């Protein structure tokens, strides 16, 4: 049966023709290229290189960025791209989020003219892959206390430390790495092959299996002086990247939820128990109705914050709400959909268990669910509760 994305409140009618065409292009690609191959990719634990090439050919990387070969699409179009990619698999969306929002964006916003010209056109085409190194083994939710250090050695910087859980790390041609220089967080561009830099892959994931996750290790890693991002200091650098990626995730989660809803609805209509389709039982209808309700609310959140991203009237707390709410509802819907599928729900014939496992990562990365609660809590009360230190 052809895929019909749930759109109860007709968000479609709010889109421009261009946004719709971009959405349909990505949807078509996912249907054609991702869905038939995703289970193999997960089983092998790889992000197929042809996906990188084809995503690059579609020209969707760094969607809302303008100039330097970047697409210059609306934030709504960027959201729709994330939605469609994640309807396929969160790992595919992760690839695009990291490349566009976490690696291209800081170069685009905080980089020098030379850095922009050197990296962005190739990254927009998918010919150069980027990653984003913020998290460390001992500093996740609290990146401000990171250990990784840069030292100014006159004609070069010397980096020491380690990053962990870095999406695209092993396949990346360049890493945007956040490290402390004289006690202050700065962004550095480290290239594959730089002396003292390695990016071993982390294995054994039960989630985001089709996404590459790596460590980044810097042992007296020597990089030229022109690899520092000149225009940003402090946590504002990484956090502004995260705001863009989190925004994309709020749409991506809708895509995963739509996929799970769709599968649950189809399954419930065709599965007969006690002589009737299970969709005819009130308890099952209640579940489907709840899914529709949550997805519809999530779509409206994502669309509205997308408009605000576009006109610049947003605050980070609003993005926190959208990321937190939408991932939360998507994960709950994935679990409920798995339940509706009964035993079949655990099979790779259906997408639901894969989405469910993926969304566990999505709940944690880009600010855990509770970190977003704390961000919103601080907004409500004016009292920060991240740390007991004043």
């Amino acid at each position, binding site marked *: 049966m*052809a895929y*019909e994305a749930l759109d109860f409140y007709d968000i479609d009618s709010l889109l421009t*023709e*261009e946004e719709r*065409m*971009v959405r349909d*292009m990505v949807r*078509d*690609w996912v249907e054609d290229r991702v869905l038939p191959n995703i289970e193999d990719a997960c089983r092998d634990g790889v992000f197929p290189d042809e996906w990188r090439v084809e995503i690059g*050919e*579609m*020209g*969707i990387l760094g*969607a809302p960025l303008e100039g330097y070969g970047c*697409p*210059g*699409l609306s934030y709504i179009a960027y959201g729709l791209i994330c939605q469609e990619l994640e309807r396929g698999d969160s790992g595919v969306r992760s690839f695009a989020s990291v490349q566009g929002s976490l690696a291209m964006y800081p170069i685009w916003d905080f980089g020098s003219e030379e850095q922009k010209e050197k990296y962005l056109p190739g990254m927009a085409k998918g010919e150069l892959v980027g990653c984003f190194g913020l998290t460390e083994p001992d500093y996740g939710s609290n990146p401000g206390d990171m250990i990784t250090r840069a030292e100014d050695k006159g004609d070069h910087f010397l980096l020491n430390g380690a990053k962990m859980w870095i999406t695209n790390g092993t396949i990346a041609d360049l890493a945007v790495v956040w490290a402390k220089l004289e006690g202050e967080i700065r962004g550095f561009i480290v290239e594959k092959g730089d002396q003292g830099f390695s990016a071993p892959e982390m294995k054994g994931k039960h989630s985001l299996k089709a996404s590459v996750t790596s460590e980044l290790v810097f042992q007296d890693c020597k990089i030229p002086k022109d690899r520092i991002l000149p225009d940003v200091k402090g946590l504002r650098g990484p956090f502004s990247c995260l705001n863009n990626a989190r925004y994309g995730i709020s749409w991506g989660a809708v895509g995963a939820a739509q996929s799970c809803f769709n599968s649950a609805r189809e399954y419930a209509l065709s599965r007969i128990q006690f002589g009737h389709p299970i969709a005819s039982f009130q308890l099952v209808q209640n579940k489907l109705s709840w899914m529709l309700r949550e997805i519809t609310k999530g779509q409206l959140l994502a669309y509205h914050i997308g408009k605000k991203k576009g006109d610049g009237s947003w605050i980070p707390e609003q993005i926190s709400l959208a990321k937190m709410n939408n991932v939360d509802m998507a994960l709950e819907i994935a679990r409920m959909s798995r339940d509706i599928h009964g035993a079949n729900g655990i099979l790779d014939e259906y997408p639901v268990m894969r989405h469910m496992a993926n969304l566990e990562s999505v709940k944690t990365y880009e600010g855990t669910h509770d970190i977003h609660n704390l961000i919103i809590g601080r907004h409500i009360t004016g009292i920060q509760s991240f740390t007991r230190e004043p």
Partner: protein
Amino acid sequence: MGVAVLLKQVPDTTAKISISGDRVDEASITKWSISPYDEYALENAIKLKESGFGDVVAITCGPSRSAKCLTEAAAVGADRLIHIISESPLDSIQVQSLLSAAVKESGCEVVMCGKQAADTNSGSTGPGLATTLGFSCVGGVTEVSIEGGNASATRLGPSGLEQVEVAVPCVFTFDKGDSELRRPNVRGIMMAKKKPVDVFSAEDLGVDVGDSMVEIKSHSSPPEKKPGQKFVGSDSIPEVVSKLREEANVI
């Protein structure tokens, strides 16, 4: 020189079609697309352009919603877009006279379209157009290449692939081949938005379509398929065999 590609907007093959008051309820169709056979024609036209053979002129005849076909064609490489606006339904001859006039206006001597439209399946547009324009017509092709004034077309014959040589001007109607219409990319989509569409009415083209010679009396849904039968266990083999032999006539 260039290639004119005729594109018809039809309900998407995945759209649900419902009947209301003896007519297909167009308002309930949520997705309209370029007719699939036309897409093969468009892909071939773009390939010809890439091999150095003039521009691709995409032409559609239909209500304002069908402008979407043209934007989609522009996104994958069509150079000029022509929309013959007709809000009310036309019969095949009327459509052909309008399309012929648009092809003449474009100056193209090679015309490509689907062998039939996915909604009406009548298959008359290509041959009808060729007759009106006085062009040759090769039907059911899967690939066309052009060298000088001569075209070479491949089509599925009764016992294998047939290679047909034909002089331009010519109309080619396309069957399903190996070359699916390429996916657009963001750059194509953004350029498509800016591409002007030449909008013509019948009067603009100097065509008097006259009265329709065909009247559709009613539409109805095809009969529902009979449900399948299920047989379980080896005991049912004789019954299955006898049914296959006597009811299904397959052995």
